[in-house]
C-alpha cells in the first residue's frame, strides 16, 4: 500500500488535468509572442513603406517551403498521436521520427536563409544595416528577434519530440497505476482491477467506487503494448509542436508576403 501511495503523491495520473496544464502553458507561449506581434504592429503602422521595401528582400520561395515543411510536420505528429491511441506503436514511432526530421529541415533552411542575409551585411548592429532607414533597421531587427525566438521554439520542440520518441520506443512496462478520471484512456485495453488487498477480478468497465486501478497490458504480438502515460506525453508534445506551427503561420505572411 505504501508504495502505491507514494506513486499517487509523486505522479499525477489525471490526463485531462495534464492536458489542461499544457493548454494553459500554450497560452503563456502565445502571449510571449504577442509581445513581439504588438511591436511588429506598432512599428509597421509607423513605417509601412519601409517595411514594404524591406520585405521584398526576403526569399518567398524558401519561406513557402518552410511553411509547407512545418504544416506537414504538424500532420505527421497528429497521425502519430492517433496511431499511439490505437496502440499502433510502430506507426507512432515512425511518425514522431518524421516530425523530428521535418523540424531539422526547417532549421537547416532557416540557417541558410540567415547566413545569406548575414553574408550581405544585413544583421543587427551591422554598418550596412545601420546605414538604411529607421523602418528597415527595425524591420530586420524584428525579423531576427521573432524568427530567432521561433527557431528556438522549434529546437525545444524537436528536443521534446525526441524525448517522447525514446519513451515510446522503450519496452512498455507491465504495470501502471491510474486514478479514475482517466478511464477513457484505458478503453481498448484489458483491465484487472483490485479493491483492498485480496479481491482481484477482471473487468471491462471501471465503477465509481474504485479508487485506484492497476492496469496490466497484455502484449499483442502485432501491436506491441503501449505505456498509457506516454499517450498523454505525446499528445502534449504534439500540442506544443502545433503551437510552433501556428506561430509560423502568422510569421510567414507578416514577414515574407506583405509587400
Amino acid at each position, binding site marked *: 500500500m505504501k508504495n502505491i501511495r507514494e506513486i499517487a503523491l509523486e505522479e499525477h495520473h489525471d490526463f485531462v488535468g495534464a492536458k489542461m496544464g499544457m*493548454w*494553459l502553458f500554450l497560452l503563456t507561449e502565445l502571449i510571449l509572442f504577442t509581445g513581439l506581434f504588438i511591436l511588429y504592429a506598432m512599428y509597421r503602422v*509607423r513605417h509601412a513603406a519601409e517595411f514594404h521595401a524591406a520585405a521584398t528582400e526576403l526569399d518567398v520561395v524558401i519561406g513557402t517551403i518552410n511553411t509547407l515543411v512545418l504544416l506537414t510536420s504538424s500532420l505527421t505528429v497528429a497521425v502519430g498521436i492517433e496511431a499511439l491511441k490505437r496502440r499502433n506503436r510502430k506507426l507512432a514511432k515512425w511518425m514522431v521520427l518524421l516530425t523530428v526530421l521535418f523540424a531539422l529541415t526547417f532549421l537547416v533552411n532557416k540557417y541558410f536563409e540567415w547566413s545569406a542575409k548575414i553574408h550581405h551585411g544585413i544583421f543587427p548592429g551591422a554598418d550596412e544595416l545601420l546605414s538604411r532607414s529607421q523602418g528597415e533597421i527595425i524591420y530586420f531587427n524584428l525579423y531576427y528577434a521573432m524568427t530567432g525566438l521561433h527557431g528556438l521554439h522549434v529546437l525545444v520542440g524537436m528536443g521534446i519530440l525526441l524525448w517522447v520518441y525514446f519513451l515510446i520506443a522503450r519496452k512498455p512496462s507491465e504495470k501502471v497505476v491510474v486514478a479514475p478520471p482517466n478511464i477513457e484512456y484505458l478503453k481498448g485495453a484489458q483491465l484487472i482491477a483490485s479493491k483492498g488487498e485480496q479481491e482481484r477480478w477482471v473487468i471491462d468497465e471501471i465503477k465509481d467506487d474504485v479508487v485506484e486501478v492497476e492496469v496490466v497490458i497484455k502484449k499483442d504480438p502485432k501491436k506491441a503494448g503501449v505505456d498509457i502515460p506516454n499517450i498523454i506525453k505525446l499528445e502534449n508534445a*504534439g500540442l506544443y509542436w502545433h503551437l510552433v506551427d501556428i506561430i509560423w503561420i502568422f510569421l510567414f505572411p507578416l514577414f515574407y508576403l506583405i*509587400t
Partner: protein
Amino acid sequence: MSHHSHEEIHGIGYGILVLVWLGLVVLTGVTVVASGVHVPALAVVIALLIAATKSSLVVSYFMHLKYESRIFHVILLMGIVTIAIFIGLTFFDVLFR
C-alpha cells in the same frame, strides 16, 4: 479490443487529418498568390484572415480542440481575448500620438 468504439471517442481518422493538411497546403498557396495582387489596403487583412483560418484548422483538428470539453474552449478564448485587448489598447497610443 474494439477499435470501433475507441475511434468514436477519440475522434479523428487518419483520412480527416490528411484532408486538413491538404486544406492547409491549399490555403498556403492562396496566401502566396494573393500577396502578388497589389491591393495595399486589403493585403494585411487578407493575409491575416487566411492565417487565422489556417490556425483554426490546426487548433480544431490537429490539436483536437473540436473534441475537447468546454473548459478547453474557454481557456483558448481567454487567450484570444487577452491578446486582442493588449494589441487593441496599445493602438490607442500609437495611432493617435
